């Protein structure tokens, strides 16, 4: 038992020590990542005064919110549509839906890059930039929403919807009042997943954005390529805290749902 605990502790140490070191040295007064020169918030100050990084933060948050809202709406509607399809067609559609989830991100990235450039050339206007970045995030988020909503739809009694119609509800009313409340937990899970994936994405963004429009991941990549920079430490610390809080909320929610289901 002690050996087991020790092993787990070692692995947890391996997973978290690098992040901890990173966070500690974000508060270091000097540039060094090894010698402690006193506590300071100077890298955070520099971070907030760095226009380029702040623009990247803004892009990341905006794209995260917009793509989550759009992908959730599209994904939830598509899931309802798919659940009503014939068996063969459903199989094909679900297969194609899962393709981007299974494919390496880099393939999704370049395939969308080719599509956007193809369309831009075809209509003779537009550029790779914020718009294409946002659209690509919506595209890669939709399957995750569908995969979160589908199980809830399958659990649902199909007769409920018919019953609502029989009782005089309009189709839209039945969707709004009957289907949506039933699948809501799946929709929320899908939305949270979409937001996290969008904020975290590097690969697809890297290939679908144009010059001048960067999100946080791309920003960190281009900074880190030039070597160690304490501003990245400060930024990473903030990202880490935000992600941990988000994850913790999702985790608590999952536990509560699991309890409600078993009760």
């Amino acid at each position, binding site marked *: 038992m002690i050996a087991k605990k020790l092993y787990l502790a070692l692995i*947890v140490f391996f997973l978290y020590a690098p992040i901890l070191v990173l966070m500690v040295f974000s508060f270091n007064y000097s540039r060094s990542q090894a010698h402690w020169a006193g506590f300071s918030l100077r890298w955070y100050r520099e971070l907030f005064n760095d226009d380029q990084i702040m623009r990247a933060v803004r892009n990341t948050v905006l794209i995260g919110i917009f793509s989550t809202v759009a992908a959730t709406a599209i994904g939830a509607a598509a899931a309802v549509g798919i659940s009503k399809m014939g068996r063969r067609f459903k199989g094909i559609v679900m297969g194609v839906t899962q393709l981007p989830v299974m494919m390496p991100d880099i*393939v999704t990235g*370049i395939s969308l890059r080719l599509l956007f450039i193809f369309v831009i050339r075809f209509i003779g206007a537009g550029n790779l930039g914020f718009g294409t970045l946002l659209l690509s995030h919506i595209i890669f988020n939709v399957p995750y929403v569908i995969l979160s909503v589908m199980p809830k739809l399958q659990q649902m009694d199909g007769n409920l919807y018919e019953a609502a119609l029989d009782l005089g509800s309009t189709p839209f009313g039945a969707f709004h009042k009957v289907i949506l409340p039933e699948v809501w937990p799946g929709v929320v899970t899908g939305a949270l997943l979409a937001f996290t994936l969008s904020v975290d994405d590097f690969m697809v963004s890297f290939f679908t954005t144009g010059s001048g429009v960067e999100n946080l991941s791309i920003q960190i990549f281009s900074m880190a390529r030039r070597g160690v920079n304490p501003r990245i430490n400060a930024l990473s610390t903030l990202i880490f805290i935000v992600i941990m809080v988000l994850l913790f909320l999702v985790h608590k929610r999952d536990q509560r749902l699991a309890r409600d289901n078993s009760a």
Partner: protein
Amino acid sequence: MKRLFGYPYGLWLTIFVVLPLGLIGYYSITATDAAGNTYFTLRHFHMFFEASFPGQPFFSRLYVNVAVRSLRLALMTTVITFILGYPVAYIMAGKGFSDKSVLLFLFIAPMWMNFLVRTYAWLAILSRNGILNTFLAWLGLPILDILFTDSAVLLGMVYNFLPFMVLPIYTALKKMDPRIIEAAQDLGANSPRVFIRVVFPLSMPGVVSGITMVFMPAAATFIIPNLLGGGQYFLLGNLVEQQFLRVGNWNFGAAIAVIMIGLMLVSTFILSWFGRAEAKEGGMKE
């Protein structure tokens, strides 16, 4: 109304999934001459396998070698994460851990942490004046200059992908009916035998999805080799990035992407076949 949602989504898939993949396929088998005429050709694939070194043995040809190195690194990453990760999943799924949810959380959280942040953390630790070397010097040991080497890339890969191996195996082990293990014990099997004949085969679906979640992304990444391997470390992902964003040879880039998709399909097929065979052997006939 409900029925109506299905068709727009079919159109969505056609435009944003099928068409882009079709474009990759199209670019991979065409080329454009100086006059702007596009024609069919297989020379990009030919170039990948022949490169400009027709006399050399197959596996040491320029691009084939890049593919071999990518696959080898991905394979090593997969094996190491499996060796480190299986015991973690096994211990966590076992009895004696009352607060599983905290532990599970600790292992899931890094999966959501930005890849770049996690890779950058190692960049700072391994650098010549980083904390590792400072610590070694303090102990009076020789310093390690491993940043921008194969070891650093492998370390970064294992670090980034380990949680992706642990989680599916844990899920599979957790789903197992403990009564099956008790039955095996009652029938006289000792612990190693129970593990080899019962527990491991039943955890195979988890192992297979763990391998899938580590191997392909590891073979396709270019962030980790780029940051921890320095500029000179070249893998398939770097090659695609270079062809699309720097050289501007989309046709060759698309051909490499097609080869990557092919490798993915082959490995998925082998894995699913392997998973089925193992599951059958473990008595999991449905």
